[in-house]
């Protein structure tokens, strides 16, 4: 009985504090597992559905996070039985919300001019930035499982200054808020394994 109470208290705490360490790691772990289970085609489909939903329902150059969350909720409502869809959608939507801050305006303008599919072009550009971030993660000395390492890396990384000169923008990832760093790495780690 005592154990049950303790477990309930723990669950209640995690629910009440989604940004406590254990809750963060658990969320990242669920997102990783779901994205891996989806496979390459499933991830692409989820990304496409969410992007199309955001374009249709959040008509703004920088959509509001609240509107994007609504899109995530409605997309996941139609996808019963695909693991923790909300966690995976959270990663995709956080990446989409951060895209315009991670890729400078000049590069985005160039993509608009030269690419027939802007979304695919910016995804490819973001993938190269995520790869740079993943290289930093590979060099990061931290134990634990993947989700825990990603969480710790992203917490520590934003405590250092990462400034990028305009000339090195393509080979440098600036300071990233924890959620942006974590979402980028979860998406890259899950997707990279599928590509190997």
């Amino acid at each position, binding site marked *: 009985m005592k154990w049950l109470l303790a477990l309930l208290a723990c669950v209640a705490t995690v629910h009440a504090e*989604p940004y406590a*360490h254990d809750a963060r790691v658990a969320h990242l772990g669920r997102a990783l597992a779901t994205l891996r289970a989806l496979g390459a085609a499933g991830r692409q489909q989820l990304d496409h559905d969410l992007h199309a939903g955001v374009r249709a329902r959040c008509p703004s150059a920088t959509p509001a996070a609240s509107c994007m969350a609504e899109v995530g909720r409605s997309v996941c409502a139609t996808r019963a039985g695909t693991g923790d869809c909300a966690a995976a959608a959270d990663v995709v939507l956080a990446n989409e919300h951060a895209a315009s801050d991670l890729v400078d305006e000049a590069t985005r303008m160039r993509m608009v001019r030269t690419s027939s599919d802007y979304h695919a072009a910016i995804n490819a550009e973001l993938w190269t930035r995520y790869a740079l971030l993943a290289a930093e993660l590979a060099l990061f000395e931290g134990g634990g499982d993947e989700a825990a390492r990603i969480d710790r890396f992203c917490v520590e990384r934003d405590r250092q200054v990462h400034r990028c000169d305009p000339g090195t923008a393509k080979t440098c990832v600036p300071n990233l808020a924890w959620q942006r760093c974590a979402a980028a790495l979860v998406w890259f780690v899950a997707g990279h394994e599928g590509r190997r």
Partner: protein
Amino acid sequence: MIGIKSIAVAALAAGAFGLALANGVLDPERFAHLSAQSAFAIGLFASAAGALVGWSARPAVASRIALALHGGRPALVGEPAPERVRELPPVVQRGLLVGVFACLALATFSNEATARIAAVPDELAEPSRAEYCHEAPAPVVAAAPAPAPEPPPVDEAGCALVKRAFKLGYAKSLGSCAPKAAVAPKPAAPAAAAREVCTRRQLDEPFAHFAWRRLEETVAGASPVDAASARVDAFQTRVEFTRDLLADIGHAITGTPHASHHLWVNLPDPHPRSWHSWLTGEEPCTGLFEHLALWPRWTAATPASAVFEHVLGQLLFATRFGTPASCSDYTIHWNAPADACARISADPAAFLGDSDALPTIRGVLDRRARQVAIRRLADELGDAQTLPIPPPARAVVSIGCVVVDERAGRPAVSGRDITLDGESIAVREVKMPAIRATGAGPVDTYVALALLLGGKPYAGPAQTGSERVLREPPGSVDEAAFPLLALEPLVHADPFTGARAPLDRAELADVFPYEQHLFAFVDAFRRVYLPQRGRL
């Protein structure tokens, strides 16, 4: 045995003839085109050189060294009997020597070379361009440009049908489709070259006249009395500024600070002097502020003075935010009385003297005054300035007070000016109710200190109009389902401009995007503060 002289002459002759033949020097065609001057020079050189060498070689006398064969092998024999030495006849030896020098002269004295040698005396007699004024060379008249070819007619769209109708006689004129020639740009007229006035000796000017002219030019406008008087005046001026010059050197040698900024804080020293600091000395400020954490994980037990010192270090000395101030110019006076600034205003010299701040402040003010004097000296002597204009006194010396008093309301800054050694110095004071280490406490400290030092409130990071419109308040997303997305509004919710509620949630301490907001805040602060300060 054969004499060495004969062998040497024969070898020289063979070598010279061989080289001459190989290089075409003895080509008959060459002789046919040889000028009279060259032929004379060759003959003169060959006969003179041959005669000279022949005279000194004494071909009629037998060599003192000879080459002999001993057992089938050649060997040199010294001082042989003269009757046993066989030599070429003297006439042949002389003839061979003349031939050798003739080959040399043939190779050297070509028609062009002889002509140039012959012209040397004339060139030597010509007056030097460095010493004499020469006639300016006649300007080269550029050949008239060839008339430009007729530019091709400019075709205009839609004129093909009109032209065809005109050619067939259906239209009387081409109208607006008549051929138009592009106007060729006119060639620019060559700019007339300014002619320099020549003050050197004229070609027809006698030397005595030239010498007198130079002497006149040298002494014109300068009387010896005036020159001596000017030197005496300059010396007297330098003597008048001797104290300033020596004092400036003294400041440089003794290491007087380049600026002196003082902060009195009514908080205890976070680094009380330990017994070993008496032996090893205090840690230099550069080491203290070298590796400041971006946003330390403080607790409620963290001393307020540690928070204050960290925030001051971030604002002024952390290199991560760009150009920092020099920490050696700043002194923090811990455990100061709450009314420190009031007492400074009442009697500056007395309070600053009691706090050991007066010597450094006076040193900086004196150093500045000496620099001003040295610039005045350069002005009076008419010399070029070697020192930059020193910053105003209030830029190199400042006084601030931080009073933490729980009775105080919102952080408020007050200021006044004091006069010390004839210079006006700014005194600023900030009163704040507390310095909290947790939640949004450090943000309050940053804002209060930036206001004290910079004097201007923070207006937020530079943003485009569209960025400002699209911000959304934090907490607008359901966190349970989308915790990553829910944090996105925090990226643009600047706690330094008021959005501090998220900082009070302890669970957000790890994931709050401090760096972005802190960088913008410190960068904006330094843009305001550093131009107000200077160094000598």
